[in-house]
């Protein structure tokens, strides 16, 4: 063994020059994307980025700490409503309102995390489910939150009248925030707190015996995860421009879980891939499929005739369900697992 190992190499941002190279390539691609892609697409891309932020946070809770949340649409809503209301009612600037709303969401995460010490598996699912439903219920019934009609989002003023108007302009802001939060998550998971999360996931009894305080770290994981959901929600408002309680429902919470399961539990790259795939599938591909002549109407027809009781077409849910089942059966590590296998294959290629 070499006498002087440089331990910073174990934790540094770019593990090797190869990683650094591809990261730079990816960043250059992302920052020049408006050059190759028509601007009407960017509303979708913004949604992808927002979901990436949320999925990265959710995966810290579910994939790394081994806790479950069926209520992340609730934190997402707190972020969206919090940011908008802090700006419109209190007149706070965007740069303060967004993090403040995220910290409020985070505080709710902390509180929701408290029962996590005693509740496990199905019981925790129900507690988080209840939380999500309560939030949607409250924002739908109080006029302060816009009620059923919803809220108009104020202009995205970065300060000094520097207002982001187009989707492409917002894309740059959201992209920078996303990159920052993804790398922060990566740092967090590489250090002491991230390791403690994994310890709780793999053996809470051993975690305690080496000195990890379960109460602190379980609630911390909820808080961190809710913070990410809060930021994502705040940005989500600006992607939509106008929103009401409708999207923040149980189905959304489940779709978030689908993203990280499909992408790969416990892997940041998995969160990114899963959020990207599911968002594009849900908001773009599946819609387009329905418009393909013959095939589209045929599939819609089948789904509404055979796969639902009330006769509504539900192709989206069916495809998501099939993907989930396929992942669980064939590649529990998700897309990230497939990616790892491809990498391994090429590393040993052509032997």
């Amino acid at each position, binding site marked *: 063994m070499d006498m002087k190992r440089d*331990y*910073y190499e174990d934790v540094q941002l770019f593990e090797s020059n190869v990683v650094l190279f591809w990261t730079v390539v990816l960043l250059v691609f992302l920052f020049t994307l408006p050059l190759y892609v028509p601007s009407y697409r960017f509303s979708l891309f913004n949604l992808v980025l927002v979901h990436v932020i949320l999925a990265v946070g959710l995966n810290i809770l579910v994939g790394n700490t081994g806790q479950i949340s069926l209520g992340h649409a609730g934190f997402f809503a707190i972020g969206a409503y919090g940011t908008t209301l802090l700006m419109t009612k209190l007149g706070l600037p965007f740069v303060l309102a967004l993090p403040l709303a995220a910290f409020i969401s985070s505080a709710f995460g902390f509180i929701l995390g408290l029962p996590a010490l005693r509740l496990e598996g199905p019981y925790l699912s129900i507690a988080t489910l209840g939380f999500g439903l309560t939030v949607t219920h409250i924002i739908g019934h109080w006029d302060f939150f816009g009620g059923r009609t919803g809220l108009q989002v104020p202009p995205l003023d970065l300060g000094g009248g520097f207002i982001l108007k187009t989707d492409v302009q917002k894309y740059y802001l959201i992209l920078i925030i996303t990159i920052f939060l993804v790398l922060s998550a990566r*740092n*967090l998971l590489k250090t*002491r*707190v991230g390791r403690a999360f994994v310890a709780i996931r793999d053996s809470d009894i051993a975690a305690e015996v*080496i000195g990890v305080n379960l109460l602190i770290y379980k609630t911390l994981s909820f808080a961190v995860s809710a913070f990410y959901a809060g930021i994502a929600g705040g940005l989500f408002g600006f992607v939509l421009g106008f929103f009401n309680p409708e999207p923040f429902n149980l189905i959304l919470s489940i779709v978030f879980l689908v993203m990280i399961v499909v992408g790969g539990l416990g892997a940041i790259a998995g969160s990114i891939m899963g959020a990207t795939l599911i968002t594009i599938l849900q908001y773009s591909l599946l819609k387009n499929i329905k418009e393909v002549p013959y095939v589209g109407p045929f599939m819609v027809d089948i789904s509404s005739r055979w796969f639902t009781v009330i006769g509504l077409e539900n192709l989206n849910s069916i495809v998501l369900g099939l993907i989930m089942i396929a992942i669980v059966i064939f590649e529990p590590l998700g897309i990230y697992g497939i990616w790892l296998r491809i990498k391994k294959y090429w590393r040993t290629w052509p032997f």
Partner: protein
Amino acid sequence: MGDHFRVENLSISFGGLKAVDGVSFDVEPNTIFSIIGPNGSGKTTIFNLICGIYHPHSGRIILEGRNIVGLKPDRIARLGIARTFQNIELFGNATVMDNIMLGRHIHMKTGVFSGAFMWWRGSRAAQEEIVHREEVEKIIDFLDLQSVRDQFVSSLPYGKRKLVELGRALALKPKVLLLDEPSAGMNTEEKEDLSIWIKDIREDYKVTILLIEHDMNMIMGISDRVICLNYGRKIAEGLPQEVQKHPEVIEAYLGEEDIFRHA
């Protein structure tokens, strides 16, 4: 009575079963103190009581003059008690390095924000990582785990996993180290290595070792003092040779495999 580590009149029962029944013992600093006894005699339960996983129905556990009964396991770990488990409890989906780094948890400070802001070499989190990784690397070298350093623990053979667990406990730099059947599943050669390591650990780490073992060669070879349990009660205490010859001990082991054969 010494104030380093002692157990007074410890009892716990499960349902009607008295798993540990009025057990007392006193351990001198920096010695190897072994607990033997047939299966189900309450050895592991005593460890679970010491590290706070179970709370005794009566009795006291004194570490350096302080009663630790009632404290939570993570508090007790911070006070200086570390252990291994009879049925290995590792973090299976983490690497050997990360498992042993987790043993440094109580000695590190990085929190959520300082951790997330590990942007460059000079950052607090990175500096702390470097210091503690160096420390862990020494343990990895000591236990000869260099070849599996970056492997996932779940992929390792049984014997190696036992060593990783030992390494993790050592990383806590405990005052008292509890080892629950560390040699189980090892072959003769590995057991000999382990005996040497345990003696080295006592010297190098200046630690007091409580050892539960079934292998009599090992017990005889490295223990300073031995107690024997039967049905939750202490039936003998003394030097290894004394306990081995004790009539009640021999009787307790009748019907069990002939474990005194080699001694």
